[in-house]
């Protein structure tokens, strides 16, 4: 009885459409982290940057009534937050693992604090009118693929554009070559006259901007409200997606859709199965999957050679 409910067309279409919708913020954050890691830095603070992005996006839209101001606010705040990470990891050449943990804690704490200070006394939970599905004329009327591909909110398409552009930037431009050479062999890049610190700063900030955007997607496109738990692990998952996607934008796209699919499936199963299976078990699914995927995709040969290694001039 349950199987017939799972294997019908409506169910499958809604899950695939859901995979795209839920996968988009993960992809945005992961593309950002791809830039960061391609330049040889590992930013584990992405979880906190996504939460502060989610809050800034919401606050911007709530204060001005304009969703796009929210998007802009999230990108700026995310970038500014990442600037601190760049300072710690590039300028001070600190342990990147610990610097990332500090960035996560700092912006997580700031978001929770700012939420309490700004909206804590309100009787009703504040909400915004966020992005709504575009329902592209004609195309969205197409059977099956209309609902899967052409009925999303605009940020989903922005996400896809980001993937395409990132691939061009990283693999078809001079700056992309510089980024990759800094991540592979900073010493050689330095001797060729590439400013290692500058490139790394740039990439960490791009990473923060995209993490902020990914966070804002969740408040502006999905929930239209903010709570302290809107990210709850998506940043860590985005980090994993970079590994799974082999540090390539299209790989990240596929990996992000895969995680979106699992999340969508999990959500649908919760409603179909009801109390037959404890909901906690289904909620564990993405987390356990993350461990498995990370384990299977952590071969050393494809990761940027200098990943997470601080570069100190004159030191081997």
């Amino acid at each position, binding site marked *: 009885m349950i199987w017939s409910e799972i294997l019908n067309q409506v169910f499958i279409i809604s899950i695939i459409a859901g995979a795209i919708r839920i996968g988009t913020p993960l992809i945005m954050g992961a593309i950002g982290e791809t830039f960061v890691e391609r330049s040889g830095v590992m930013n*584990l603070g992405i979880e906190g940057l996504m939460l502060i992005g989610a809050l800034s996006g919401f606050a911007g839209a709530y204060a001005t009534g304009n969703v796009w101001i929210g998007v802009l606010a999230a990108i700026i705040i995310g970038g500014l937050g990442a600037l*601190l990470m760049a300072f*710690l990891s590039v*300028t*001070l*050449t*600190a*342990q990147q*693992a*610990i*610097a*990332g*943990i*500090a*960035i*996560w*804690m*700092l912006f*997580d*704490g*700031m978001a*929770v*604090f700012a939420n*309490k*200070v700004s909206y*804590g006394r309100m009787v009703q939970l504040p909400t915004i009118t966020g992005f709504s599905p575009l329902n592209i004329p004609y195309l969205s009327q197409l059977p099956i693929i209309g609902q899967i591909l052409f009925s999303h909110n605009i940020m989903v398409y922005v996400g896809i554009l980001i993937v395409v552009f990132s691939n061009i930037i990283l693999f078809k431009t001079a700056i992309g070559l510089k980024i990759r050479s800094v991540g592979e062999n900073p010493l050689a890049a330095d001797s060729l006259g590439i400013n290692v610190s500058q490139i790394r700063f740039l990439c960490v900030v791009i990473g923060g901007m995209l993490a902020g955007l990914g966070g804002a997607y969740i408040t502006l496109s999905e929930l239209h409200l903010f709570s302290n738990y809107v990210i*709850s*692990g998506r940043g*860590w998952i985005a*980090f*994993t997606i970079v*590994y799974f996607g082999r540090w390539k934008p299209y790989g990240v796209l596929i990996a992000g859709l895969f995680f979106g699919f699992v999340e969508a499936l999990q959500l649908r199963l919760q409603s179909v199965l009801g109390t037959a299976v*404890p909901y*906690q*078990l289904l*909620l*564990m699914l993405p*987390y*356990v999957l*993350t*461990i498995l995927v*990370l*384990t*299977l995709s*952590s*071969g*050393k040969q494809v990761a940027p050679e200098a990943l997470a290694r601080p570069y100190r001039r004159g030191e081997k």
Partner: protein
Amino acid sequence: MRQEHEMKLPKISNELRFNVLVTIMTILVPFLIGAIIMLFISVNPIAAYRSLFYGAFGTLSGFGETMAKASPLLLTSVGVAIAFRCSSWNIGAEGQLLIGAIVTTWLGLFFIPLPPIIIIPLALVLSFVAGGLFGFIPGLLKAQFNANEIITTMMLNYVAVLIVSYLVSGPWVSETKMGITPMTDTITPSLQLPVIIPGTRFHIGVLLGIVLAVFCYFLLFKSTLGYKIRAVGLNPRAASFGGINVKMVMVLSMVLSGGIAAIGGMAEVAGLHHQLMDGISPGYGYTAIVVALLGRLNPLGIIVSSIMFAGLIVGADTMQQQAGVPISIINIIQALVIIFVLTSEGFMRWRKRRA
């Protein structure tokens, strides 16, 4: 005369004095930034910090509460320090603590009745084993497959929280107790740890923590295993050339780390809550990272920093009630402490290179 004495001071003491000064600064500056944030929300920071200090150390019950909170913090931080010394970035102390709490609750609810002298050590050992296993998984995945342990331990934290949530709202839910959050029945009295100061919640968990911290100090700095752990942490390649089984030591550091953190969970259930419920740990495992780093990954230093941070958590409650500063400011200050520890290390590196 005095000058002569000063001149005789060896150089190392200058270095030590400098280190102490830097450590004090890494605590003071974050609090100063915290004060600036308070000014932004028009709160008097002096009054706020006074209520924080008063709440933590000003009354006997407050002091007892601080010592009660120091117990899980101390144990998880010592656990974190052992892993960090090996450059295994275990941020899974939160989940490992919960596993210890689960095992202890199971013993206290469903195991055959035993006298305290048997069941308390049994809970200690079983928690250590379960937490060790929870640390073993990410340790093995790191050593064998190069899987980033920060992510795997973090994911296991979410899993542990969900296991607790499932147990306390499902199979272990109390039929008699009513509360906002679901909880289990009270554990058998023979597993409940004694209280040190009557009338407070200051239980022997913190003494257990101090004993274990001293033990871990000797383990880390005076034993062969500790030497190996630190050697792998400093330079795994060199350690490997020196004949150390790097993978083995890596996994072992995670097992020890997880086991000790789990004892923190054991002490929480047996000493403080006497039951399991949702949200039993308000993030001790994460604060432990800050405490461990501030204690310079030295178990003896961590004894001091954990009591300090326990006071911070207890005092933050009072500060929220009296001065209206949201508790989450503590998280900001904690993160800033790490950032200034890193900054001071960067500064010292720079100073060394210049010298």
